[in-house]
């Protein structure tokens, strides 16, 4: 076997994002009244080194090995998620939820981070084994189960943010496996019904669209009936479901629609984050000099709202730079995915991309109130060991897929 050239652009982009991110964690600690955050950048740097080692190790694992290990990793993940539900604990802002695996009072890590990786692997394995992409809803039961079981376990923690990531992964990988767009829309239809149920008129319009979709797509009769029924049911149960939501979840959704309804409490975070970003202007207030951050107006500035610090201190230029780096990473991942040697590797690459993408869109969107607050971190930026490790493990897997893939000659192209 010839010696393979590593995917230098991929590593460079991920490295640049990580250095950028650790700088922001450092800046987030530079407040007028120093807190524990001031030293987190050191911890994060250590994690960065560990994560790069892990990525290197992961890049040594062949795709065939991944294929072999996937079922075991998946089962292990499920066990850990169950364990977390049984003996887990919370941390930070989500102190009441059970997202950390705690053994003997020591927080080991967040299995949900591992789950994102293993679900991608397992889903890729299931979808890659099919000769043709699923063409009916019934054929989707297997992939749905692969994502559904860990999803339910994570929603029980509860961790809405990671739950959303799973849904993103699911749809993105179905798309990449060649599932028809209209079928995807049909799959998503109950969720759309759920959201639109708050307005009878909107829901009615959506229902007409759905009926037309069912008519033209012509699924099996039973499926079509089932779909329509499910949509009717979700439209009806949505208000009941709303009542079942915890008050803080209801509040988050309402505040997302209008932060000023609770400017002092729930809406406070979003408003202050927007003020921080908006006050940055073209070039920002200067590295470590953001007043909103220095004076602790920006909430969770080292984790969920770290992008607000980017916006405030580095301005629109800094934001554009960060977003461009992410875009470059994703474009690279699409390239790796389309040049992968086999469907399994290709699907893994696209699934990892989807996982990152949902994080970035949701996290960055949240800082400007374009997305509801769900508390998911920004890859490579937000402080957190597990997440840094998981992100670089993904980089490692992508490196391997890239090496095994076609067209390694043109390094310059992204």
């Amino acid at each position, binding site marked *: 076997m010839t010696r393979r050239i590593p995917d230098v652009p991929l590593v460079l982009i991920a490295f640049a994002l990580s250095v950028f991110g650790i700088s922001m964690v450092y800046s987030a600690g530079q407040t007028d*009244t120093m807190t524990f955050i001031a030293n987190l950048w050191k911890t994060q740097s250590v994690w960065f080194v560990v994560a790069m080692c892990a990525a290197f190790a992961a890049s040594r694992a062949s795709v065939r090995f991944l294929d072999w290990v996937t079922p075991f990793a998946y089962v292990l993940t499920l066990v850990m998620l169950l364990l977390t539900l049984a003996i887990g604990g919370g941390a930070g802002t989500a102190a009441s939820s059970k997202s950390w695996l705690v053994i003997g009072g020591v927080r080991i890590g967040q299995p949900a981070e591992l789950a994102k990786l293993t679900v991608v692997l397992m889903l890729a394995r299931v979808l890659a084994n099919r000769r043709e*992409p699923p063409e009916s809803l019934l054929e989707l039961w297997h992939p749905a189960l692969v994502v559904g079981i860990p999803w339910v376990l994570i929603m029980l923690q509860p961790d809405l943010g990671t739950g959303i990531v799973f849904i993103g992964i699911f749809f993105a990988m179905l798309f*990449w496996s060649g599932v028809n767009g209209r079928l995807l829309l049909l799959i998503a239809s109950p969720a759309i019904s759920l959201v639109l149920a708050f307005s009878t008129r909107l829901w009615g319009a959506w229902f007409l669209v759905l009926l037309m979709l069912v008519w033209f797509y012509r699924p099996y009769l039973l499926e079509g009936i089932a779909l329509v029924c499910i949509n009717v049911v979700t439209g009806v149960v949505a208000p009941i479901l709303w009542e079942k939501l915890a008050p803080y979840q209801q509040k988050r959704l309402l505040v997302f629609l209008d932060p000023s309804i609770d400017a002092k409490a729930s809406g406070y975070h979003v408003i202050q984050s*927007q003020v921080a*970003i*908006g*006050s940055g202007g073209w070039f920002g207030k200067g590295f470590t000099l953001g007043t909103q951050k220095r004076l602790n107006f920006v909430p969770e500035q080292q984790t969920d709202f770290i992008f607000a610090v980017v916006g405030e201190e580095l301005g629109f230029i800094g934001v554009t730079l960060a977003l461009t780096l992410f875009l470059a990473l994703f474009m690279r991942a699409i390239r790796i995915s389309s040049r992968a040697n086999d469907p399994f590797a290709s699907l893994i690459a696209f699934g990892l991309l989807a996982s990152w993408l949902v994080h970035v869109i949701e996290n960055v969107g949240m800082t400007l109130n*374009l997305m509801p607050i769900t508390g998911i971190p920004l890859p490579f930026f937000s402080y957190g060991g597990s997440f840094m490790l998981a992100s670089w493990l993904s980089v490692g897997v992508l490196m391997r897929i890239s090496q095994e893939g076609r067209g390694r000659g043109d390094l310059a192209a992204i």
Partner: protein
Amino acid sequence: MSYHPNDVSRRATVARVLLGIGFLALTTAFFRAQVLRNQEYLAQAEQNRFREVPLAAPRGIIYDRNGRIIAENLPGYAVSLLSPTADSLRSAMRRLSNIIPITDDQVEAAVRRWRKNPTRPAVILPDAPFDVVAVLEERRVENPSLIIQSTPKRYYPDGPAVASFVGYTGEVTERELADTTHSDYKPGQQIGKGGLERSYERELRGKEGVRYVEVDARGRVVRDAGARPEQAPVAAEPLRTNIDMDLQLYVMSLLGDSLRAGVVAIDPNDGAVLALHSAPTYDPNRFVGGIPADYWRELNSDPRRPLYNKVIQGRYPPASTWKLATSAMAMEAGLVQLDDHMPVPCTGGYRYGRYFKCWDKKGHGDINLRRAIEQSCDVYFYQVGLKLGLSRLVAGGLKLKMRERSGVDLPNETQPQFPPDAQNYFNERYGARGWVPGSVSLNLSIGQGENAQTLINMARFYTALATDGKAARPEIVSRKPDRVQIMNLTEAQMVGLRLAMAGVVSSRGTAGSARVEGITVAGKTGTAQNPPNPDHAWFMGFAPAEKPRIVVGVFVEYGEHGYVAARIATKVMARYLKATTAPLVTTE
């Protein structure tokens, strides 16, 4: 999955396009927030971190006519706390109460101030003593929301001597804030509370400055000075008054603390108030920045009513000092002249339905108007009153502005009591058949009955007697003199009246014992009946009688007889005239 290269590249293109659109949308959103709405968010960020700390402007200094200071400013300290919520303010104050004395009332007052304006530091101690400030400065690090700043404090060097007209300053109250005329005031600011401080609030206030401190999200002061350029306060212009502090202090020394009296001295030529004092007095310095509860209770429970201004608020029957008003009306109507006699000589009383007594049981005999004024003969004036008739008595009183405030530049002047007309007023009061116009006329003619005047309004009337019949509006602060013709008598008649009044303060008159060497004083005593208590004593007069330069009105509650007031008045006149006619010693 379908892994044909064509399929894959088609999906990759779709994915790239979707990604591009997504990132373009995100970038657009950031562009909108950061570039297009930058100013708006920047302003909000600044508003987040800066708290305005007001810098009180020094109030205008008040001077007397000779440049002596009546009111000035001393350095004081105000302590404030920045708080995000009322509860945190409470707990911060509770913590402070371990090192400095803070009462529950002070806590609640601070919370009220905070509620009015949560972004301003809530004043917790408007006037902190130096030792408290020293303790707080030492512990400043433990209390990062604390703001201590020097703030000018009002001081009246002659305290009790000026209490009757200067007023005091205090924190603006919620009621004052609710008033639209105070829309430019903020809680915690000082405002004039009575006297000149209130009348001239606009002139004395100055312009408040502002300093900015930088705070963090929890309201702790992170940076104090220099966080943002400050606006310095602008001190108000000084206020010059007509008061003669030498005379004012002399008046106070004459009245002492035992008398319940009012004294006012006015220059009849321009209405300048030279002295105005109500006894017993109080110390306005103790009122500044909040009246101590025990002092307030003490003043309010004092039966001598120190807070009741006997010059501008007290309203008493003018008694015989009114006889000059009756005389002026009768002379103006051409009914009686100074040498005219009345049909019935005084035998100690006069029968009109019932028996109306003269104050002197022995009687004054058959006398003319001049003598009647000197001796204050009631029987003579009863008959003048009957000649005039009730409608002319009432109309005359109204013309002399006996139903109007003097217009002195002080707040809370009481309106005198006088019938607004000769018919309806009495009908309403006593019923159409319940009164006899003649009896009412008799009472009115000697300053009794439905007539109660303030000392200051009587003094204004006497400025007309002292000059050419024009009454001068009393003015404490130098303004344009405002004189109104209220009497239309000839020069000879005016001189005659003044001579008759000079006779009052002579061996022939009722105030003979009040004579002073070298000065001819003209005036009129009055003894207002006040059953069952002792009578009130009045004296209204001016000097020198030939060309009056000072009108003095004295009222002594329960003074028993007019000469008690007269003795005080003549001393005041003598003091003023001797001081002002002596060759001026200039140091320049």
